[in-house]
């Protein structure tokens, strides 16, 4: 199951990266006399209600979603590592503050943060700003989940026998951290990274569907899903389901590569 999933994911990533070359038209170009057109030569998936080529928009949306979700996951994991490193300090106050910060970030429902962010942005916000802010906020808000795992791991390490042995052998703290603790944390970081990617892909889709994610005209899987709110459009052009099909396919591939389902909750 792992190999087909990896191959499929690689294919989707390549499609996204090659969007500028593969897309028959610019994603934001409006063919004003071709609004809501059915699939036809030149527009294999038809056009949307503003006359934009659906296939081109899907390819560019793939690029946005598959590249920026890992970027947001990287931000979360790096922030989590940075904050959790404080757990190594021998201070109870630091440990409590860390646990408090973790609790606060876990208590704030992500979607609500995006609503507040959206209410602060002007209606004509540049799409590039909105896409950067959306994924950056996802990355920042999401540090608490891997942070909890890193903190628990570091606290466990503090009582580990190998650490006492390394200290007794006269190793410097920096050497212990880089040569002994880091390899353990690195593997945990990779696991957390892989858990966060599908979570962020799905979050972006939900936000986009609500109009709170990436702003038009830049396409993302989320804002392409907004067509699903009009069943008549879906019935007239089943290609409107293509973003959902691609999203489900990618999510299934990512899930099958996700190491621990228990940690994902």
């Amino acid at each position, binding site marked *: 199951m792992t190999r087909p999933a990896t191959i499929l994911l690689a294919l989707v990533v390549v499609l996204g990266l090659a969007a500028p070359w593969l897309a028959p038209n610019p994603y934001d170009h409006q063919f004003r006399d071709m609004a809501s057109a059915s699939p036809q030569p030149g527009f294999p998936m038809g056009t949307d209600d503003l006359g934009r080529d659906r296939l081109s928009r899907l390819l560019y949306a793939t690029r946005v979603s598959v590249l920026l979700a890992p970027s947001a996951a990287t931000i979360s994991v790096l922030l989590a590592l940075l904050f959790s490193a404080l757990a190594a300090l021998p201070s109870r106050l630091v440990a*409590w503050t860390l*646990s*408090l910060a973790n*609790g*606060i970030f*876990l*208590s*704030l*429902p*992500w*979607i*609500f943060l995006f*609503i*507040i962010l*959206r*209410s*602060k942005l002007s209606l004509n916000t540049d799409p590039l700003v909105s896409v950067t802010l959306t994924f950056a906020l996802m990355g920042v808000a999401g540090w608490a989940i891997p942070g909890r795992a890193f903190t628990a791991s570091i606290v466990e390490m503090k009582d580990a026998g190998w650490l006492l042995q390394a200290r007794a052998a006269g190793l410097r703290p920096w050497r212990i951290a880089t040569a002994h603790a880091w390899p353990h944390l690195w593997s945990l970081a990779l696991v957390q990274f892989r858990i966060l990617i*599908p979570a962020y892909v*799905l979050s972006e*889709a*939900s936000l986009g*569907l*609500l*109009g*709170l994610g990436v702003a038009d005209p830049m396409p993302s899987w989320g804002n392409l*899903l907004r067509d*699903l*709110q009009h*069943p008549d459009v879906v019935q007239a052009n089943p290609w409107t389901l293509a973003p*959902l099909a691609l*999203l*489900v396919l990618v*999510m*299934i591939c990512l*899930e*099958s590569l996700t190491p621990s*389902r*228990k940690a*994902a*909750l």
Partner: protein
Amino acid sequence: MTPVGRESTFASRLAPGRLALGFLTFIATILIGGFAAAALVRYSPGFDVDEDVLNPHLSPATIAARHAQREVENGLPRFYLRYLARAAHGDFGKSEAFNLPVSELLRHRASISAGLLVRGTLGGLALGSLLAWLSVWPRRLTLELSAVATSGLLLAIPPAVLALFFFFREWPLWLAVALALLPRVFGTARSILEDFYSSPALLAARARGLGSARLAITYVLGPAAPQLAALAGVAVVLAFGSLIPIEGLCDVPGIGQLALKGALARDLPLLSALGLIITSLVAGVQWMGDLTR
């Protein structure tokens, strides 16, 4: 671990020091969440607009004196304390978009969201746990694969898309909340059940010839109760998170739709109140969950 071992771990969680620290964290989370909410309102556009400037009956000196007094009163620390004191009495200010007190809006819509939340959470917990049980207990590969595939497919679909499908089919929306919750419950419930299923205590009891029902109750459900209770807490939080897109897209007049309308109308007093309430709710549920975990 034996049931007795589990109980002692649970008891240690309820030790006074740990309980106090958990409560302190809970209060601090609410206070900081409240501070963030108050800061949002305080620095919202138009908050500083001084109507006295347009009053022709006031001298420039009076206007300046009143402005200075307002500056002091509306400084963030004082404003925050006033906001918290009012919020503690259920007064969250007035919604700009609806021109009604926020508390009144919340009162009207809370019952609708609560109904959806309770039925959705219970449904999600029941379906997720049932699927987890079927994938672990009978030890049949086909059942296990079917359960994993169902959960995997539901996890891959955004809850809002699921809700839209139910909405257009005119099926009950709580079922969409339950199905959105199912894979999240399934993953954790399955891990918990697997741990207990392979425990030495259960294997020994099975060797002694205990019946399936007795084994399940004594060696799986009983000892796993604290963890399953924690899972129920997390499920409430997850279901609440899915209410905003589901109510917003499917035109359900609940708190989720209120939050979305507030966001689209840039109604900061309303958003701040909702932020404070949701933070308190989630922090409370997580605290309870941490105690039982």
